């Protein structure tokens, strides 16, 4: 069975879990986008054992294995390859039997930007701050970038709470934060965020939405 991805597959009804997000308020002055559809090029090396009638399929599956899930500073996460635009002529490398094919492919990438305001779900809270996730991106908000009136509370469910107890940040809380820095390595993008600016902070508490 050919294992290839369709380019822009036919519309499927989007099965989604109940949205937890709230309507946006007009204070998201620097909102941006995260998903992009771009064309990238890569030189794929193939061992001679793969040569044959399934050469193209083997090239595509190798591309998927090599590229999907990786990330770069420029493009962000390569979430999924949607299609192959062009496979160029192979070039035999001197001294080895490997052949290099230039492959142009379309893919969906996910990239955070500095200055972007987005909503994330808290995954862990500790005295240094809290970790949140927005898609595949991990964001850390230091306690220095949490409003001063929120203090860390230890316990079974560590959290940051205001003095009057009205606002609480704990695991599974939704927060609106602003990205102030990013760090990229081969498999991950890690961001630093803040909730200290105006109109940033908790959107919903997991206790109230259940």
């Amino acid at each position: 069975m050919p294992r290839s991805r369709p380019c822009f597959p036919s519309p499927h009804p989007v099965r989604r879990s109940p949205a937890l997000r709230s309507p946006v308020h007009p204070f998201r002055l620097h909102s941006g986008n995260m998903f992009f559809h771009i064309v990238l090029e890569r030189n794929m090396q193939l061992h001679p054992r793969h040569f044959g009638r399934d050469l193209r399929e083997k090239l595509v599956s190798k591309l998927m294995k090599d590229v999907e899930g990786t990330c770069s500073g420029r493009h962000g996460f390569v979430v999924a390859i949607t299609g192959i635009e062009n496979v160029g002529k192979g070039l035999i490398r001197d001294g080895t039997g490997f052949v290099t094919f230039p492959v142009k492919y379309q893919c969906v990438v996910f990239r955070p930007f500095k200055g972007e305001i987005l909503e994330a779900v808290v995954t862990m809270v500790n005295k240094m701050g809290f970790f949140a996730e927005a898609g595949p991106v991990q964001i850390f908000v230091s306690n220095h970038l949490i409003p001063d009136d929120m203090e860390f509370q230890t316990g079974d469910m560590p959290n940051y709470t205001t003095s009057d107890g009205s606002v609480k940040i704990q695991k599974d809380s939704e927060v609106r934060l602003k990205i102030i820095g990013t760090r990229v390595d081969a498999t991950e993008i890690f961001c630093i965020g803040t909730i200290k600016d105006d109109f940033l902070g908790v959107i919903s508490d997991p206790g109230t939405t259940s």
Partner: protein
Amino acid sequence: MTHLWRTPVPWLGRKISKLKLYAVISLNPHLASILCSSFLKQKKMSDKGGKGGKSALKSPASKGKDDSAKLKGRKVQFDSEDMFDEKFETNGNGKSNGKGDTPFSKGKGGKGDKGGSAKKEPPPLLLNVEQELPENAKCLMNCEAAQILQGIQDHMVLLSKDPTIKIPSSFDRALQYASTGSFYTNPQSVRQVLESLKKQDVSDGEICVIANTGIESSKKVFALMPSLKAKKTNVKESLTTALTELKKLKTVTESTIVLD
């Protein structure tokens, strides 16, 4: 500090080249700190009046006696006149003008200039999507991304039979993020409605923000995107129409929370 490398330093009565100075510094790392401190002191002295620079320069050398002992037979002499060679070449003499501004305070030195000038506030954090991505990048609305990824996931049920193909965890997280972040189930209709705004020079990114945020009021759109506010007079009417159409397409879910 970088400016020091440009001008040759007198060494045993003769000038030495930059490379030799590098070699000496690499052999004696302490010399780098002595050079820095002497330069800073010289700068302070020149700010005050410029005179007595020589004595200020010599004092750190005397402090670093251990290092100077190692450099026996080699006197590191920083002649202030030579340090200002670059500036005073045209004067024809080696004497300092005694003024506060030195070559180190000029932009060339970089570090020296940064050290001397007042600290500038960092520029505000601006979102520069277009400049950071390649030209062929197309902004995707969350609903579009959710549709594409959902389709791929359905095909992955077949692909998963092959043990060599592993689904990256970033895929599932991205799909979940896109799904929970979208208000619409029919991205094609949304795109069709918002395409009309392109005639008014609304960019692709701005269109996607409108779709992703699910805003219903044009006032809020202009507040959200200052770049769109600049085109307000041209865009307002068509934007209001588009938002009205989008409202009809929006899916109302049980857990939509309305905050006042």
